[in-house]
């Protein structure tokens, strides 16, 4: 088998990906593609990126053998501890990379969309550090359910703009950020937080997040003496999952499981699982699997986790699904809650609700792999931001 080499020059992963934007954005995207292709091979750029990841983010993040969870679920479970990164999630890997590009392109203003607020915080963080103006678009509903992150962004000096249009969640924040970018293309760099959007974003964000999988691959070889049988990660847009998967893609024996948000259940229609239940369409600059109605209108999604509450998914996941290289499954809100409580009580690690979906599926997968089976779960973020949501669901007043 030849080595994996997606996407093609125009950003296609098979029939997925590409560039589907209004004309005004074609040149900015071309400039970004040229800059990205140049700097991703530039030793000075890569050195600065690595240094920032090491000294500012705190990488490498540990690969931790979760003895309690392994015993309980019945397999050898390792956690890739992205929750220990500065700002508490994997999102910072990508914002560091894109902010360094913004600096090299001479842009003075950074914009971002955010759902749960983790990407917004990670963007506000790098903007503060580099002295760049920062505007974060966030759905009005998400602002209500993620109040602590909104305040963190403001403390960091970012303006947070409430998006009232459409479903008032992540997809609408992305629309609004695109509108801002069209209007301010000359001085503005748009830091997309996931592996969606038009080319080169899916490939670029993947490349900045691939540090997760590169570290994990080396760490599991050192700690377990062999490659894992499976990788498990939650998938909203899919950046933490692709970051873990990508460096293992040519390791055919390593199975990959992306876990979408099944919300109230895949059969109810109240979910955010386009790979499991969606159709192929075009949204936010790329062709991928989407949650849409028969007329091609994007439908509202549901998940307990704001970070997974998105009707699309990165085009590379769509490709990995169709090619059969990765498997896509889903965990419901209540399964994610069980996973959350399991890992909190058994490991003393409070995970993000997003990552709890991966934990939930690892229980099912463990039964298939058996006691000697090795899996790595990407623990993509910490759960402090979700404490209020958890308490509300559990009927506890705090």
């Amino acid at each position, binding site marked *: 088998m030849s080595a994996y080499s997606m996407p093609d020059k*125009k950003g296609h992963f098979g029939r997925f990906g*590409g*560039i*589907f*934007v*209004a*004309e*005004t*954005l*074609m*040149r*900015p995207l071309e400039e970004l593609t040229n800059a990205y292709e140049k700097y991703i091979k530039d030793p000075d750029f890569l050195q600065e990126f690595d240094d920032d990841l090491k000294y500012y983010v705190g990488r490498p993040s540990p690969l931790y053998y979760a003895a309690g969870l392994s015993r309980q679920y019945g397999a050898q479970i390792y956690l890739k501890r992205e929750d220990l990164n500065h700002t508490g999630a994997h999102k910072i890997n990508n914002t560091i990379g894109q902010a360094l590009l913004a600096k090299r392109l001479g842009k003075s203003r950074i914009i971002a969309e955010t759902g749960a607020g983790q990407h917004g915080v990670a963007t506000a963080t790098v903007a503060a550090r580099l002295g760049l103006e920062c505007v974060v678009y966030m759905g009005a509903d998400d602002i209500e359910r993620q109040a602590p992150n909104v305040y963190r962004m403001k403390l960091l000096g970012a303006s947070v703009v409430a998006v009232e*249009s*459409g479903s008032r969640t992540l*997809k*609408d924040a992305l*629309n609004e950020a*695109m*509108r801002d970018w*069209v*209007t*301010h*293309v*000359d001085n503005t760099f748009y830091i997309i937080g996931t592996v969606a959007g038009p080319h080169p974003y899916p490939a670029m964000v993947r490349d900045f997040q691939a540090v997760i999988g590169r570290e994990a691959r080396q760490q599991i070889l050192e700690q377990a003496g062999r490659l894992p049988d499976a990788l498990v990660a939650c998938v909203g847009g899919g950046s933490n999952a692709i970051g873990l998967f990508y460096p293992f893609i040519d390791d055919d024996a390593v199975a990959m499981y992306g876990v979408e948000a099944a919300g109230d259940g895949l059969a109810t229609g109240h979910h955010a699982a386009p790979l499991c239940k969606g*159709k*192929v*369409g*075009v*949204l*936010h*600059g790329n062709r991928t699997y*989407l949650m*849409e109605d*028969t*007329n*091609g*209108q*994007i439908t509202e999604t549901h998940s307990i986790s704001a970070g997974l509450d998105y009707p699309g998914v990165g085009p590379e996941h769509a490709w990995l699904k169709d090619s059969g290289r990765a498997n896509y499954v889903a965990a419901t809100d209540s399964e994610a809650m069980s996973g959350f409580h399991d890992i909190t009580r058994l490991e003393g690690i409070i995970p993000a609700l997003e990552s709890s979906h991966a934990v939930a599926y690892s229980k099912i997968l463990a039964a298939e792999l058996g006691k000697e089976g090795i899996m790595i779960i990407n623990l993509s973020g910490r759960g402090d931001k979700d404490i209020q949501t958890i308490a509300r669901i559990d009927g506890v007043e705090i």
Partner: protein
Amino acid sequence: MSRIEKRFESLGKSGRKGLIPFITAGDPVTDITVPLMHAMVDAGADLIELGIPFSDPMADGPVIQKANQRALAHGTSLHDVLDMVKQFRRKDATTPVIFMGYLNPVEAMGYDEFVEAAQQAGIDGLLVVDLPPEEAGELNELLYQRDIDPVYLLSPTTTPQRMEIVSLEARGFVYYVSIRGVTGSAELDYDEIQQSINEIRQHTRLPVGVGFGINSPERAVKIGQHADAVVIGSAIVKMMENYNGDKQRVINAVSGFLHSVRDALDAISKS
């Protein structure tokens, strides 16, 4: 020769500037759209741009976003919009109608089915905002076969190289976006617009329409001195916000406004 080409040819012969109003189909109610189209033609429209409602209109400003939401609130589908054009064609066989929208509703229907239905309904042009020529090959082949013109946007950020790419695929006319921004926003830089139109004419022989941000007879005149046609969207769509159940009042308001733009544009041709 397509209906759009014919229309621009006769405009050119008579020295008349083209007036292209835009409305969102089904906004605010289904049965206003066809009468409004006829009224716009009576008020001096030469071509009509009809917006296909979409849940995520990324290139549109707040006025047209709300129009999309109003049209979708009562379920306006692409099938419905095609039906509206079919009705319009019963009384008007000459005014070109251009669909403007986003790709996903078209993909959901399927390219083959859509293009066939569009031809049967009497659609003359298709402008898909988020479908650049690089991704449009398959759809354009079908459109060319059925004499439907793919219409493309050019913007202040379009390079000469891209103008070449676009002009190879475009038919009917090209649509120059007069601002960096979404529909309905910002001040216009008339010098930049004039320069851009001159540049565009070096790359294509198609007529040049200009839109985004043209909201008054005065602005229409300044643009019309250089462009072959002006497109007016948000200023008209804004009038739908005062609907309140009274169709005729809204139609009269749109007609009055278009008459004033028509008169102003005709004054250029005469001078």
